[in-house]
């Protein structure tokens, strides 16, 4: 009998989770399962959201093109071989199974050797178990194999397409939050470390309206944006405006915002708990192909909503009276006040607009992935990076900077950034760009003296 090698190629795709792995997750995403030993399914779609996708390939001893191995039963277990079963599936005609998982953690993929077709044997020690560390997942390809022969991964082209798709979506979400941050920074000079908590606010508000009041996700999202705007208005009135009137310095206000961030994050955790939860709709959606790009319906909606919102906001800021007033205040508050502008009113408007945009980022993030008490905090550094990269306080700069950051994060792994820490690439680029162009891409050089 000719010894043939089979290899497993696992792609761990999943939620866009940034910077810090979230702790233990409680609620499971629905897990499609196929009964073990049944006939090979025609097609196992890749589960959106967190999943482990395994492709089983017959390497034929390294000669010729590897071919998929259908009809093999694979089981994914949590933590260890004796852990809870997450799902079992039988490889389809492409040799693929795709099993949804709950989130970060350790998973064990076990292959049932009895279901291997005639003539196919495992190479090497014949090990049938592999352990996968799932971290920070969007499209993290973790490749492992049973046997010693390295398999070619997904082609470079398709990885670039995938990375670009995820990067643009991530970049747009970052851009919404970054525009909010930039507006507030531009008009008040406040470096707001509690901005991440405004993102979380939008997401948790969506969850509460959706799961708590049973409203459809779309309605819940709209209400959450309104709630965010109201929250921003009250925050400015109740906290920041009194501080401005007292003449509190910018650095002192920045530290106040750090305190506020700790406070709000702990409150969220108190009320919402440490677990990651899903909304009631649009959790699992298959992707359709549009040319070379695969997109799910919710991803299309997210892209459309964010692009339209960003463009409308930016154009409005360029054209309308309020927009001009905002830019005037950000240029010179004292002068604006003395020329009869209601500076406090303008700043209120900026807070409402800024927090609404940021809340929308949270809503879309909740739809795209899941809801967690520190999702905004995890995103904060990338939002800062986007704003700084584009140029502090510039509107278009925040957009461009955020898109670059999103793409850097998602495309980094294609170009050799270790997949489990793909944010590193974006942050390194940020530092390098600041070295060459300290004012950011669109920022203006400062006048000294």
């Amino acid at each position, binding site marked *: 009998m000719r010894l043939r090698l089979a290899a497993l190629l696992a792609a761990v795709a999943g939620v866009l989770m940034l*910077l810090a792995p979230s702790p233990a997750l409680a609620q499971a995403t629905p897990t499609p399962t196929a009964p073990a030993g049944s006939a090979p399914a025609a097609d196992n779609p890749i589960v959106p959201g967190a999943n482990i996708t395994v492709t089983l390939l017959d390497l034929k001893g390294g000669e010729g093109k590897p071919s998929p191995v259908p009809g093999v039963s694979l089981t994914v277990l949590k933590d260890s071989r004796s852990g809870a079963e997450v799902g079992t599936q039988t490889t389809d005609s492409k040799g693929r199974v795709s099993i949804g998982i709950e989130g970060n953690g350790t998973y064990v993929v076990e292959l049932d050797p009895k279901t291997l077709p005639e003539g196919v044997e495992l190479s090497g020690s014949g090990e049938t178990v592999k352990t996968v560390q799932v971290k920070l997942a969007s499209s993290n390809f973790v490749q492992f194999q049973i046997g010693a022969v390295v398999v070619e991964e997904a082609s470079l082209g398709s990885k670039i397409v995938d990375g670009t798709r995820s990067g643009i979506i991530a970049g747009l979400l970052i851009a919404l939050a970054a525009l909010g941050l930039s507006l507030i920074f531009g008009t008040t000079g406040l470096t707001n470390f509690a901005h991440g908590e405004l993102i979380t606010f939008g997401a948790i508000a969506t969850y509460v309206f959706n799961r708590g009041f049973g409203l459809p996700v779309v309605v819940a999202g709209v209400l959450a944006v309104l709630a965010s705007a109201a929250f921003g208005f009250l925050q400015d009135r109740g906290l920041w405006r009194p501080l401005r009137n007292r003449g509190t310095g910018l*650095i*002192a206000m920045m530290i106040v915002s750090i305190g*506020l961030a700790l406070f709000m994050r702990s409150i969220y955790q108190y009320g919402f708990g440490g677990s990651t939860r899903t909304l009631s709709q649009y959790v699992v959606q298959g992707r359709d192909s549009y040319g070379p790009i695969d997109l799910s319906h919710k991803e299309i909606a997210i892209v459309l909503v964010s692009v339209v919102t960003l463009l409308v906001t930016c154009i409005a800021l360029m054209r309308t009276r309020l927009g001009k007033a905002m830019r005037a205040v950000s240029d010179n508050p004292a002068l604006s006040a003395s020329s009869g502008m209601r500076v406090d009113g303008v700043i209120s408007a900026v807070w409402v607009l800024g927090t609404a945009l940021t809340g929308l980022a949270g809503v879309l993030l909740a739809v795209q992935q899941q809801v967690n008490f520190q999702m905004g905090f995890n995103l904060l*550094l990338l939002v*800062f990076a986007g704003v700084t990269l584009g140029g502090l306080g510039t509107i278009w700069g925040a957009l461009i900077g955020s898109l670059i950051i999103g793409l850097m994060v998602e495309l980094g792994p294609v170009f050799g950034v270790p997949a489990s*820490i793909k*944010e590193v690439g974006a942050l390194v680029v940020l530092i390098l760009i600041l070295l060459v162009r300290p004012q950011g891409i669109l920022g203006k050089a400062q006048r000294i003296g």
Partner: protein
Amino acid sequence: MDFGTIIDAAFSAALGPQAIVFALAAIGLNVHFGYTGLLNFGQAGFMSIAAFGLAVTVVTWDMPFWLGIVVGMIAAVVLALVLGIPTLRLRADYLAIVTIATSEILRLIFGAVEFKDTFGGSNGLNGFAGTYQRLNPYGDGVDLGIVSFSRNDLWSITVGWTLVAISSLLVFALMRSPWGRVLKSIREDEDAVRSLGKNVFAYKMQALVLGGVFGGIAGIFHILKQGSAVPTDFNTTFTFYAYAALLIGGAARVLGPVVGSMIFWFLIAGIGSFFSQATSGADPLLPEWLMTNTQASLIRFILLGLGLMLLMIFRPQGIFGDRREIAIDGR
């Protein structure tokens, strides 16, 4: 409710090794932020690079312990230089963003599964503290009624408070000198200092390196007292807590960071112990529907956030500071 336990927990934490780590890190931040006005939000990065400098030298490269200490300190100095050269000529916010980004980069790299062979992945490294533990002269732990420490903690406390004392003395000596005067002047107005012929960049760099070295000492002490170097210990939240400790005690005061760290841990441990007791047992003081035991552990962080805000608004000079000479009301 057992108040003895609460008091024991509070005092043990205020005098214990964790407060020392905070004190050392906050002394560094005091040099950066309190005296010079540099917004370093990456103190955790200085700590982690020194800590892993030691751990990697001893564990991964199998080199002597003392060489590891040297490597760790050099790593902290190099990090300060690398961060300072591009950013110290720029506005204060840029240093903030670059330091915070760098500390996250370091933490992610140290915890990355791809570099597990060097840095130990998310579990980190251990087995480098043997020399430190063998130097322990104590035979047993101590229980003084309101505080109790194990044998290892007792040794760490001895080493740690000695380090804090030496560091504070050095800061005191430096800050009463003309060198310290230049730093304080830079904090207020760089251009004025420049117009008097002082190389502002060089002074800022010296301050950044000095504060970074204190951060490095904090990081090394942290991993020695617990015997393991774990990447997640060095997250940005740590830096924020260290700032809170500094501001409680008062920025730009020699003993501000030390007193602040002790108060910080006294409150964190005391409040934690109180609410933990209030929610545990068969018939808890606070009913289950109001607060579970898990939620009880969050109360101290809610209060910490609130306290930091109120402190900054109503007493920015800290509990003992002098309002006329603090750094943070201006700009």
